[in-house]
């Protein structure tokens, strides 16, 4: 980057451009310092058909501009001084293009549903909800009722449906620059925490366990069951006589060797008494 210059920016296609290349030149108001738009007659065919004279905003050179001072083509796309389209009209928000610098942080995890498998590999592409019951599109990104991509925290729109690319019969894929690896990936505790959560759900899915949600009780129970199953399989398994080895607890101790506590002893005593009463008092 040249000294005193703004860093170059990316458009959605991942192409770099200079900020000055899309800016018109204007006189400014001496007090407010705001740009002063000029006006010229609009000669476009659409306007001519209307019959009355119409005017359009332009810069000092007579080039068509929008209200925020960017150069436009006839269709309202932002163009550079050579006429190349940099931003398409539907990609703008309030006449302002996104400002995407190489240091802009973005993580796909912000918009990804909590999933226990790669939904893009589902041949029917009919997954509608993630493990937390939130709507997802065919790429596994969280979406609102109008199919805009939203973030996982506040459910705010990050990508309007209009800017998404078609995937598996649905407008579902985010613009190229956000999946190109050209942007900075956040490396903070929020990201690590999120990655861990998503990895955990995926691992559960791969090991065939139902649900990958971050429910601590379920997690603990499933984790204990996994440990027990592993020990049964690998440490004990089938004995020489064909019977399965006795069940072990989480610590690997035979459950038969675990001494019952006082409450359990009391319960067992009651059971034995019931048993004796039931069978000893039977009429002969």
């Amino acid at each position: 980057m040249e000294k005193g210059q703004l860093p170059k920016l990316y458009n959605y296609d991942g192409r770099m451009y200079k900020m000055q290349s899309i800016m018109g030149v204007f006189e400014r108001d001496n007090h407010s310092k705001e740009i002063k738009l000029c006006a010229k007659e609009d000669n476009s065919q659409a306007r001519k058909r209307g019959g009355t004279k119409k005017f359009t905003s332009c810069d000092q050179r007579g080039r068509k501009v929008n209200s925020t001072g960017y150069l436009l083509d006839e269709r309202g796309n932002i163009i550079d001084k050579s006429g190349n389209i940099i931003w398409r009209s539907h990609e703008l928000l309030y006449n302002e293009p996104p400002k995407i610098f190489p240091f802009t942080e973005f993580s796909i995890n912000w918009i990804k549903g909590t999933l226990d498998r790669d939904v893009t590999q589902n041949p029917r592409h009919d997954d509608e909800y993630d493990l937390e019951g939130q709507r997802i599109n065919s790429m596994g990104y969280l979406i609102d009722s109008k199919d805009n991509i939203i973030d996982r925290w506040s459910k705010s729109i990050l990508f309007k449906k209009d800017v998404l690319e078609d995937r598996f019969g649905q407008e579902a894929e985010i613009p190229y620059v956000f999946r190109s690896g050209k942007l900075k990936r956040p490396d903070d505790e929020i990201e690590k925490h999120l990655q861990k959560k998503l990895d955990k759900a995926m691992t559960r899915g791969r090991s065939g366990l139902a649900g990958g949600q971050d429910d601590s009780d379920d997690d603990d129970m499933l984790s204990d069951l996994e440990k027990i199953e592993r020990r049964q399989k690998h440490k004990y398994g089938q004995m020489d006589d064909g019977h399965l080895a006795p069940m072990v607890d989480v610590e690997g101790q035979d459950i038969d060797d675990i001494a019952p506590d006082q409450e359990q002893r009391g319960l067992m005593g009651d059971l034995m008494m019931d048993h004796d009463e039931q069978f000893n008092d039977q009429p002969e």
Partner: protein
Amino acid sequence: MYFRDRDGNAVNQRGYLIDETTGDLRSQYTFDVVFKNYNLIGIGNSRFELPLPYRLERHNFNPHHCVGNFDYDDEDKPIILQDGEGNRIDKNFRPVNASGWLIDESENIIDNLG
């Protein structure tokens, strides 16, 4: 948990100005709350990062608010003026750099409001 910036203002671990008692993010000009603490992103009860889409859009700005007031040559390059000491200025005597961007004393690019 909060920290202090060079001017002694309370900031969170990301450097955002906060209200020490509530943890809300505040404006540097008016002390108004800009983001309530419960809207911030974090882990558990520790919230410190801007909510989306602001986190992604925080570098958005209108470049015309950062450019000086100039006449332009035929190649659209700004005709930059100089003060008595040879410093680059615009038609409103504001300091600018060689490309015409408004700058502060440390040569950071700034907007019309400074």
